[in-house]
C-alpha cells in the first residue's frame, strides 16, 4: 500500500474537501424557532351567575348542594353545645376544609376543637390528607375519610354525622336539622373582594352521640350550628379577616352576624341573617339594619401571639336586639394543621341581653379570623 507524491496530494485534497463539507453541514444543524408575541389584554372567564342552592328531596337523586363541589375552597363547619346525661357541659367545633389548587387531588384538613366546660380544658385535634373520593355530581350520601376520621352527609337535607379521634379524645355525633335552612344574603351567595362564595346554614341541628375524654365515656346531646361554604374565592389573613357570631337564643331564634375586614384591614362589610323561632328568615345589612359589634376585652394567645377581642356587644336595631357575649374560656384558639397566620379563635360563648326590652339568653359560637401574624415570606422582607 504505497502512495506516490501526486496520489498523496490528491487524497489529501479529497479528505480536506470532505472535512470542510462536514463542518459546513454540522454548523447547519442549529434549529431556529420563530418568535411569537404573547397576545395582550387577556380577559378572565366570566363569573357564573349564582344558581339556586339545591337540597336533597325525595324523587330528586341529583343536584344536592350539601355535597362537595369542584370549587377552589369548600368547608363544612359545625359548632355546638353538648351536655352529658349527668349535665356536664361541652362545646365543640368540627370542620372539614377542602381546597383544590389545580395541581392534584383536593387537600383535606379536618379539625376538632373540644371544650370541657367543667375543667376549662380545650382540646385540639386535626387530620390532613390529599385525595378525596366524594359524591361530586351525585345525590349523596357523601362520605369523606380523612385518615382515620370520617364525615358523612346523607341524602336527607341537614342530616350529617362525623367521627373524630386522636386516641385521647373521641367524638362521634349524629346531627339532624330541626329548622328550615338559612340562606345568607337572601339567595345564599356572597361576593367578596377576592371571589364569591355560596353560603348557607342549618342554624340548629340536634346533636346526639358519644364523647370520650381520657377514657371517660359520655353519651351527649345538644344543639349545633352548621355552615357550608364553597366557591372560587380566597381567604386572606391579617390584616384581612372577620368576626363571626352564630347565636342560638333560648327563645328558638337564631342569628348570624359577620363583620368582614378587607385586605386593607378596614371593615368592608357587616351583614347577618336572622331566623325567628318560627323559621322565618331575614337578611340583615350593616347600615340598613343598624348592626353594631363592639368588643369589651381582649386576650393574647401565648402560642401564636395573636391578640383577639374577647367579649362583645352585638346590637341589631331592626331586631331590637342588644346582646352581650362572654367567652366561656379564653383559650379556644385553633391552630393545629394550619399555617401560623391561619390560626383562629373559635369558642363557646354565653349570651345575655334583651330584645325589644325583653330579656334574652342563649349560647353562641364566635369565630375570629385574621388576628395572627402571617408567616413571613423571607424573600419579600429582604
Amino acid at each position: 500500500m504505497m502512495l506516490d507524491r501526486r496520489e498523496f496530494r490528491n487524497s489529501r485534497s479529497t479528505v480536506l474537501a470532505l472535512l470542510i463539507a462536514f463542518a459546513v453541514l454540522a454548523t447547519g444543524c442549529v434549529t431556529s424557532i420563530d418568535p411569537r408575541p404573547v397576545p395582550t389584554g387577556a380577559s378572565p372567564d366570566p363569573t357564573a351567575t349564582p344558581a339556586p342552592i339545591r337540597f336533597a328531596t325525595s324523587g330528586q337523586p341529583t343536584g344536592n348542594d350539601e355535597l362537595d363541589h369542584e370549587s377552589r375552597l369548600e368547608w363544612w363547619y359545625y359548632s355546638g353545645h353538648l351536655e352529658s346525661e349527668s349535665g356536664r357541659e361541652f362545646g365543640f367545633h368540627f370542620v372539614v376544609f377542602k381546597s383544590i389548587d389545580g395541581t392534584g387531588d383536593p387537600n383535606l384538613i379536618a379539625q376538632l376543637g373540644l371544650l370541657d366546660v367543667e375543667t376549662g380544658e380545650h382540646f385540639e385535634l386535626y387530620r390532613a390528607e390529599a385525595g378525596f373520593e366524594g359524591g361530586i355530581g351525585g345525590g349523596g350520601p357523601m362520605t369523606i375519610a380523612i385518615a382515620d376520621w370520617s364525615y358523612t352527609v346523607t341524602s336527607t337535607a341537614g342530616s350529617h354525622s362525623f367521627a373524630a379521634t386522636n386516641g385521647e379524645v373521641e367524638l362521634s355525633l349524629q346531627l339532624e336539622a330541626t329548622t328550615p335552612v338559612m340562606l345568607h344574603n337572601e339567595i345564599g351567595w356572597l361576593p367578596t373582594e377576592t371571589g364569591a362564595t355560596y353560603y348557607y346554614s342549618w342554624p340548629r341541628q340536634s346533636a346526639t352521640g358519644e364523647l370520650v375524654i381520657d377514657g371517660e365515656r359520655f353519651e351527649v346531646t345538644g344543639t349545633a350550628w352548621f355552615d357550608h361554604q364553597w366557591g372560587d374565592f380566597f381567604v386572606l389573613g391579617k390584616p384581612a379577616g372577620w368576626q363571626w357570631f352564630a347565636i342560638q337564643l333560648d327563645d328558638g331564634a337564631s342569628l348570624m352576624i359577620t363583620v368582614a375586614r378587607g385586605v386593607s384591614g378596614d371593615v368592608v362589610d357587616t351583614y347577618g341573617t336572622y331566623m325567628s323561632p318560627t323559621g322565618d328568615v331575614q337578611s340583615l345589612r350593616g347600615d340598613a339594619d343598624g348592626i353594631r359589634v363592639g368588643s369589651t376585652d381582649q386576650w393574647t394567645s401565648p402560642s401564636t401571639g395573636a391578640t383577639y377581642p374577647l367579649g362583645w356587644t352585638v346590637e341589631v336595631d331592626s331586631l331590637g336586639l342588644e346582646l352581650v357575649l362572654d367567652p366561656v374560656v379564653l383559650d379556644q384558639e385553633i391552630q393545629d394543621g394550619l399555617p401560623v397566620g391561619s390560626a383562629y379563635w373559635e369558642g363557646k360563648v354565653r349570651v345575655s341581653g334583651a330584645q325589644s326590652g325583653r330579656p334574652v339568653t342563649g349560647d353562641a359560637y364566635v369565630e375570629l379570623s385574621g388576628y395572627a401574624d402571617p408567616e413571613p415570606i423571607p424573600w419579600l422582607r429582604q
Partner: protein
Amino acid sequence: MLQALGAFVVRRKYIVVATWAVIILAALPFAPRADEFLKPGGFSNESFPSAKARKVLQQRLELSTLSVEFVFSHPEWSPFDPRFSDAVENAVGGLVQHVEIAYVVTHLDDPRRASTASNTVHVTAGLTIELEESLEFLKTITADVDPGPLDLIITGGPALYRDISLASQEDLRRGESVAFPLATLALLLVFGTLIAAILPAAVGGGGVLVGLGIVFFMSQGVDMSVFALNIVTLLGIGIGIDYSLFYTSRFQEELRGGKSVEDAVLGANSHAGRAILFSAVTSLIGLVSLVAFPVMMLRSVGIGAVAVIFAALLAALTLMPALLAILGHRINRFRIGPDWAKRSGFWVPLSHWVMKRPWMVLIPTVTILVLLAVPAASMRLGTVDATILPDSLESRRGFDVLREEFGFALKTVIPVGYIFEGSPFERKNLENAYDIGRELERLDGVSSVTSIVNLDPTFGPDQYAVLYQSPESITDVATARIVRDTVRDGAILFLVESELHPFWPETRVLVTELRSLVPPGDNGGTLHVTGGASEITDIINALYGMFPFIIAAVLIVTYLSLMILFRSVLLPLKAVLLNVLSILASYGALVFVFQQGHFSGLLNFEAMGVIEATLPILLFAIIFGLSMDYEIFLLSRVAEAYERTGDNETAVAEGMQKSGTIITGAAGILIVVAASFVLADVVVVKAIGLGLAIAVFVDVTLVRALVAPAIMRIAGPWNWWLPGWLDRILPAVKHDA
C-alpha cells in the same frame, strides 16, 4: 509500510514483546481504576437552552432542581398518626442545618406527600449544590437521617446517579467475567488448538488493559461518562480479539502454504495487517463521529473507543507478529478441537448455490431484512429515567413508590420562568404575567398552569392586584406556597403541566412552542423554559439535528476509503448499503424489544416505551465499524482472488471460503461478548449489547453469507469497474503484496 513494520517487528521480536510487557504492566494498576474519574450520566450538556434556563431560574427564583427524596413508611401507623409524624420530624429535623439543603418539605407541610392507602410519606430535601458534589453529601445525610421505627428508602437525583454508577460497574464486572471465558471458548472452537486460541484473547486483553489505562488518564482531563466504560470494554474485547484472530488465522494459512515462520509473519502482516488497518480506519470513522455530538456520553464513548481501537490495532500489528514470530509452528500445539482448514467446509457450496439463483436469494433475504427493520419506523426517542435501573436497587425502589403512590414521572411539568425588571406584584408586571399565563393555558397539550396569576380562571388582573396587595395575608395553603416558592423580585415561575409523557414527541412540540413565546410589555421581560422535557428536547434536537449529516459524512468517508482499498465504484456502495440494512434491522429489534417491551420478562427489564436517544447513534457508530470489518475481511479475500484469477464467481467463492469460517468465528465471539452485556442491570447497556449482537448476527448470516454473494454475482464485472480518471487520482493499494 506494513511490510516494513512487519520486518522490523520480526527482527526485534523480543524487544517488541518486552516493550509491550512493560506497557501492559504499566497499564495494569490503572485499568481497574478506569472508572475513578468517570462521571454518572452525561446525557445532557450545560450549553443547552434548558440548562441555561435552569441556571437562570436557580439564580432568580432560587429554584432547586436537585433533591433527595426520603420515603418513609410503616406497616400499621397512618401518616398523620402522631407517632409517624414525630418519627419523620425527628428523622429529618436536623437536615435544614446543612447549608447544602435549601428546604425540607414534609407531609405536614403538604398533605399530598402522604398516602394513607400504603402508610407512606415522602419528604423532599431540595439541594443547593450540583449533582457531582451531591454524591458525597448524600453519604452525610444518609448517616444523619435515623428513621427510628419507620422504614426508609432514599431516592432522588443523587441516589439514582449513585446507583447508576454502581450498577454500571457491576454490569462491567459481570460482562467481563462472562465475556472473556466465552470468547476464549469460541476461539478454541475456531482454532482448535490451545495456543492459537489463547493468543488472540491475550493480545486482545492486553489491548483492552492499555485502552482502559488510557481512559483512566484521559478522564482526568476530559469529562467522560461512566457508561462509556462498558461500551469501551465491549468494543475493546470484541475488536481486539477480532483483529488478533484474523492475524493468527492468516499466519496459520501462510504456514500451511509452506512458508517459513518469518515469511508467514510477513505475509500475514501484509494481508491481514492491511485488512485490519482498514477495518480499524472504518471503525474509527464511525466512532470518531461520536465526538462531534454535544453530549458527554457519546463523546466519551467516541474518545474511549478510539483509545481501545488504537491500542487493539497497535497490539495486532506489533505484539501479535512478534509473538507469532517467537511461537512459530508451536502456534498449532495442543489441538483439542477440529481443524477447519482440513475440512472442505460449506462456504464454497453455499456461495455457488447463492450465485446460481442470485435473485431468488436476494429478494427474500432483503425482504426479511426490511421486515426486521420495519419496527424502527415507529421508534420514539426519549431519555433515561430511573427505570433503567434494576428494582433491586434502593433508589429504583424509591422511585417506584413515588411513581405508584404519588404519580411521579407520569406527567410532564415544564417550568417556565418569566424574568423582568421590578416587583412581581406591580400592576403592569401582573398584567403581563396574566397575559402570559392565559396564553400558556391555551396551548395544545397543556392541562394546567400553576402560577400566581393562574389561580382562578374568573380572576383578572384587578382581582389579582387586590389579592397581592398583602401577599403574606394569603392563608390558603396552596396559594401561599405558590407565592412563597414561585415568585421573587423580577421573576415569576409558571409550572406548565401536561398529560403528555415527558418522552413523547408531542411534548417536544409543546416545549418548542413555549420557547417561541415573546412576553408582552416594556419591562425587559424574557421567558426561560427548562425542566426534564426541555432537556430531552435539547438532547434530541442536538443529536438528531446533526445525525443525518454525520451519517452522510460517515457513509461518504467510508465509501471513499473502501473505494481506495477495492478500486471499485460498486463494491463500496454495496458494502455501505448492506451495513445500513444491518443497522436498520438492529434498530427494528431495539424498538421491538426495548420500546414495545417484547421479551421483557425473559430479559428482565421494564420496557422504556422509548428508545434512549443516544442509542441509535451509538449503535450506528459501533455497528457501522464492526460490520464493515467483516465486509473488508470478506472483500479483501475476494479482491485478492479476483486479482489473481480475473474471474468474478471464482473470486467470490474463494473469498467466502477463505474468510467464511474466520468471519463467522469472529462474529460469534463478538456476539458472545455483546450478548453477555444483555445480563447487565442497566437497561441502556443491555440494549446496546442486544442491539449489537443482533446486528452482527444479521450481518454475518443474512448479509455476508447470502446478500453479498448474490449482489456480486448479479453485478458481475461491474463489481470491479472504476472509471479511468478516478483510478488515476485514487491512491494505489495492491492486494497481492
